[in-house]
């Protein structure tokens, strides 16, 4: 079979910078996220899919950790994105709109799910005299959303920073070991680790700011 090349794109399909490789992701994610936010707010249906694709793992992981139940976590994830879409006109588009906003909605939906659970427990209690335990209702770790936002930010970093960050903070390798593993100079490793931490610090500040 003759291979026909992919048709060349003659014009961008949206007026948005197309996110290409990892380097582009690191350099300018803000502009495209803000543009996505504008389209989302304007009710472009494709934007809902894009927002879902990019942040459903964040929301789902948060719900899963808070509720410790697959079905409840899926339901909460669904409620969050539907609520976000229905309430999109209340959202202020910005470069860091989505994580804070979606986590904020998720917090409410998780607490609704817990309330529903507590009602069920009380019902069972009335029948079987069982005491509701914290385990059933779930406990909230206030750091959890930050940890998940940071994890996503690290996964979205360009290489080699992403690998260096994972080796340094997840595998707890020393900088010397990372230099040996990656074949990069020690000074480069150190500067990636420092800048990586600074970058995450800024991300968290902006996300927190975005939630106000």
């Amino acid at each position, binding site marked *: 079979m003759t291979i026909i090349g992919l048709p060349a794109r003659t014009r961008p*399909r949206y007026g948005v910078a197309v996110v290409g490789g990892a380097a582009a992701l690191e350099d300018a994610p803000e502009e495209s996220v803000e543009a996505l936010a504008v389209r989302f707010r304007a009710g472009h249906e494709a934007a809902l899919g894009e927002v879902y694709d990019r942040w459903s793992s*964040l929301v*789902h992981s948060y719900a899963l950790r808070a509720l410790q139940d697959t079905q409840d976590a899926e339901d909460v994830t669904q409620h969050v994105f539907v609520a976000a879409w229905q309430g999109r006109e209340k959202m202020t588009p910005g470069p860091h709109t989505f994580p804070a906003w979606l986590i904020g909605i998720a917090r409410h939906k998780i607490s609704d799910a817990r309330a529903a659970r507590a009602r069920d427990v009380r019902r069972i209690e009335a029948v079987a005299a069982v005491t509701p335990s914290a385990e059933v209702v779930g406990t909230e770790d206030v750091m959890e959303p930050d*940890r998940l936002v940071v994890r996503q930010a690290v996964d979205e970093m360009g290489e080699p920073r992403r690998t260096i960050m994972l080796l340094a903070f*997840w595998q707890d390798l020393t900088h010397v070991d990372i230099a040996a593993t990656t074949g990069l100079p020690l000074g480069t490793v150190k500067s990636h680790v420092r800048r990586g931490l600074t970058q*995450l610090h800024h991300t968290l500040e902006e996300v927190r700011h975005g939630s106000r």
Partner: protein
Amino acid sequence: MAHADIDDLAALVIEPADVPGPVRRHVGACERCSATVEALSTTRGALGADPLVAPPPELRARVMAEALGPSTAAATETGTGETPPGDPVPLASRHRGGVPLWLASAAAVTALVAGLGVGRMSVGEPEAAPVEPEPTGAVLAATPLTALGSDAPRGAVEAVNASDDVVTVSVRATELGDEPGYHEVWLINVDGERMVALGILARSDNGTFEVPRRLIEDGYRIVDISVEPDDGDPTHSGVSLARGELV
């Protein structure tokens, strides 16, 4: 002394021994810099979370269906009598909805095709598997799929007659590999200049997509499966895993 460079402050959190004495002494005396160090240690404490857990693929269709409502599901209705009761969709409006759909962007098409699975789910069908071809439909065209530039088999595609103006394209792919990303199905025109996105192979390497017959007749006959990174770009990634031409 001027305020310390933030990367030095980060170093103070990560490896204090690397930081020169004057910087450490400045931070000890400077409220602003010590507050930044504290914030950086909080960030340091937020590292180490396990990888994020994606929800199951079928949840996307549920979200799109509930958020975008029955009108979208109706726009992609299969016309096989599965319109939810109480929500009749006149044929004309369905037709109107269908035409611009194929002129819309690839992403919009993808979203709407995702909506198709949804309409079915919302009427309570337990099997969310790809739509099976019409049992009475005749096979109009078929092709084996191969890897690009080789004969390595990658499954097969059938185009089945669904109705007067609709063809059902049934993809059964194999050995697409485990490159990260999701698999998207495209129809490339034999003119090599135009292409349309059919949708995502969400559940497995199999999927069924409804295509207006006139697209196939116009030359959109090359079935292409790509691996797409989750980068928000609705266009083809340029990485094709399998191809075949419907003949």
